């Protein structure tokens, strides 16, 4: 390797970034006290980190180029992680430990931890739902949060007006979200991929803005308070007991989601979604109805967001439009992209990493969205298939 050439490149890039970030990172104007703050240390940080970062960047690009030539994408080539996972001697004990951990979690840790875990599990569910739309069917939906809002507001409003409980609303919200998916999906699904992304983003924002402005319907920006927590046969529960209960409700819902999504994925419908993602024209030429297939993906994806919304409303007991911004959709997209589009295990790990890390690394939480942004770009550049690659199912045949 040409060390001098590489050093020179890194120096140039480092100098370029110091120039680029100079006004915004170094100078800060305090317009109240009319003073200017010069933060030269930021320039030093940028210089050093881009010097190292650009070398890493070039190294990763060259690695990626090499691996593309070898093309390790055949289903026989699983990652070591996946191999370990499919080894029964390893799999069963691991599963056993995992189940033990999941069951004992709320008793071992504080309520604060349990609450964080509930949030993480909601994101697992949202991630798995969006994964149907983005990962399997290849439709970039940037308005997914709208269905989450539909779920949350269904519970909030149905409870407020008619006193409906958590368990009654859960299926209703799922159905309403699915209907909303069909309603919003129908007119836009003919659009090409990038337009679809923008239109769904538009729909998501429209729903949020309507919730904010249509006070008589949604109670406006102040939102709906005093939403009851999940109930169990009318038993009175303390806050702690209820949190533990909600945790197990969420575990149950996530297991249900995994079960359904896994079955859908390996079915006639699931195959049609993937084929649609791979090549729309060829897919239609194989006799698959494009609109119908897209609509089922949209509706079935929305269903989970609807249910997630109900749990969210029940957990926080308060909802307002501020929880349903476009960036929420982007976070869920990050989960799917990081984990691995189309891979259930990938999406679960993506959701846990992205929701738990910022909680436990407090210093990191301020930089959360910044890092998500970097992550989206670098995942697309270096590993578009995500942490865990979706492995296709294999079949064995005996020759007769």
């Amino acid at each position: 390797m040409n060390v001098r050439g590489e050093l020179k490149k890194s120096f140039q890039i480092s100098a370029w970034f110091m120039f680029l970030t100079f006004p915004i990172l170094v100078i800060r104007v305090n317009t109240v006290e009319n003073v200017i703050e010069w933060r030269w240390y930021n320039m030093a940080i940028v210089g050093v980190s881009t010097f190292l970062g650009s070398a890493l960047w070039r190294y990763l690009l060259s690695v990626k180029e090499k691996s593309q030539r070898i093309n390790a994408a055949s289903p026989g080539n699983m990652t070591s992680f996946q191999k370990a996972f499919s080894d029964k001697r390893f799999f069963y004990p691991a599963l056993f430990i995992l189940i033990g951990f999941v069951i004992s979690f709320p008793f071992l840790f504080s309520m604060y931890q349990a609450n964080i875990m509930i949030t993480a599990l909601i994101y697992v569910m949202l991630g798995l739902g969006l994964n149907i739309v983005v990962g399997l069917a290849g439709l970039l939906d940037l308005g997914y949060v709208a269905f989450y809002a539909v779920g949350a507001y269904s519970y909030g409003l149905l409870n407020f007006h008619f006193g409906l409980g958590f368990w009654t609303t859960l299926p209703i919200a799922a159905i309403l979200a699915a209907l909303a998916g069909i309603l919003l999906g129908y007119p836009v699904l003919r659009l090409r991929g990038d337009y679809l992304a923008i239109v769904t983003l538009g729909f998501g924002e429209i729903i949020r803005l309507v919730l904010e402005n249509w006070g008589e319907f949604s109670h406006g920006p102040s939102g709906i308070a005093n939403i009851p927590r999940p109930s169990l046969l009318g038993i009175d529960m303390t806050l702690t007991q209820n949190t533990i209960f909600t945790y197990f409700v969420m575990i149950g819902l996530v297991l249900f989601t995994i079960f359904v999504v896994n079955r859908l994925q390996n079915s006639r419908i699931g195959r049609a979604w993937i084929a649609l993602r791979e090549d729309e024209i060829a897919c239609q030429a194989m006799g698959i109805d494009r609109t119908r297939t897209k609509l089922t993906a949209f509706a079935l994806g929305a269903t989970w967001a609807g249910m997630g919304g109900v749990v969210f409303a029940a957990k926080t007991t308060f909802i307002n439009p501020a929880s349903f911004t476009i960036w929420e959709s982007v976070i869920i997209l990050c989960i799917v992209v990081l984990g691995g589009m189309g891979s259930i295990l990938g999406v679960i790990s993506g959701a846990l990493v992205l929701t738990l890390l910022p909680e436990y690394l407090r210093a990191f939480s301020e930089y959360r969205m910044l890092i998500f942004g970097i992550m989206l770009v670098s995942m697309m550049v270096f590993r578009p298939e995500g942490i865990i690659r979706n492995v296709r199912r294999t079949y064995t045949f005996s020759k007769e």
Partner: protein
Amino acid sequence: MEPVLEVNSLTMDFGGLRAIDQLNLRVMPSEIVALIGPNGAGKTTFFNCITGIYTPSAGDIFLSVNGRRERLNGLKPNRVTQKGIARTFQNIRLFQNMTVLENVMIGRHCRTSSGILGAIFRDRRTRLEEEKVVSDSYKILEKIGLDRFVNELAMNLPYGAQRRLEIARALATEPFLLLLDEPAAGMNQKETQELDELIVNIRDTENISILLIEHDMKLVMRISDRIYVVDYGKKIARGNPLEIQRNPAVIKAYLGEDPDA
């Protein structure tokens, strides 16, 4: 006997450009018909009109199977496939990240019916249907000679095998008429020879009529029953291989004004 495919004065305009001009074409049951002509003559556009990707500007397309004659104009591509016309693509359009078997299983989609609830609950009917889809698809792969690749991703197949997989996938839709768009493009001589046998074999064993676009004249002359020659969207000749080889209009279209050049 009634033709399987009957195209009457089909015209296709793109803005001011007439890509196909009053084209008539017939394909009889179990016939292999070739559509040849210089690049840009409108052959692929013709396929796109038949399969519903484009809506023709004028003219009629009829498909007759089992004594029923249906007009195909304006049907969506998936409906056309359902009626019994399958196709391959000139620039291979496989589902790259799916396995070879799954590619063929997609072809079975329009002949199966299990839905969302079936997928979730996996009832007996769905399970049986799924098993049948797998075994049918495997049989097609065996027939086409791709069974050793079943679990490979489509993108990892050698080029010739990808072309064959396109044919396998099209066959899985149980067509009465198969449209092949340059099936031999980029193949070596041995592969072309095998393809030649495969196409004839499909016609003989499955009773499927075949309409193909091809530039490899040896292949066309060997297997076609009849040939249509088009240039600038117009039909300039029609006949059996011998007639076409002797037709002065065809020679002119292929070699230009001066045959010595």
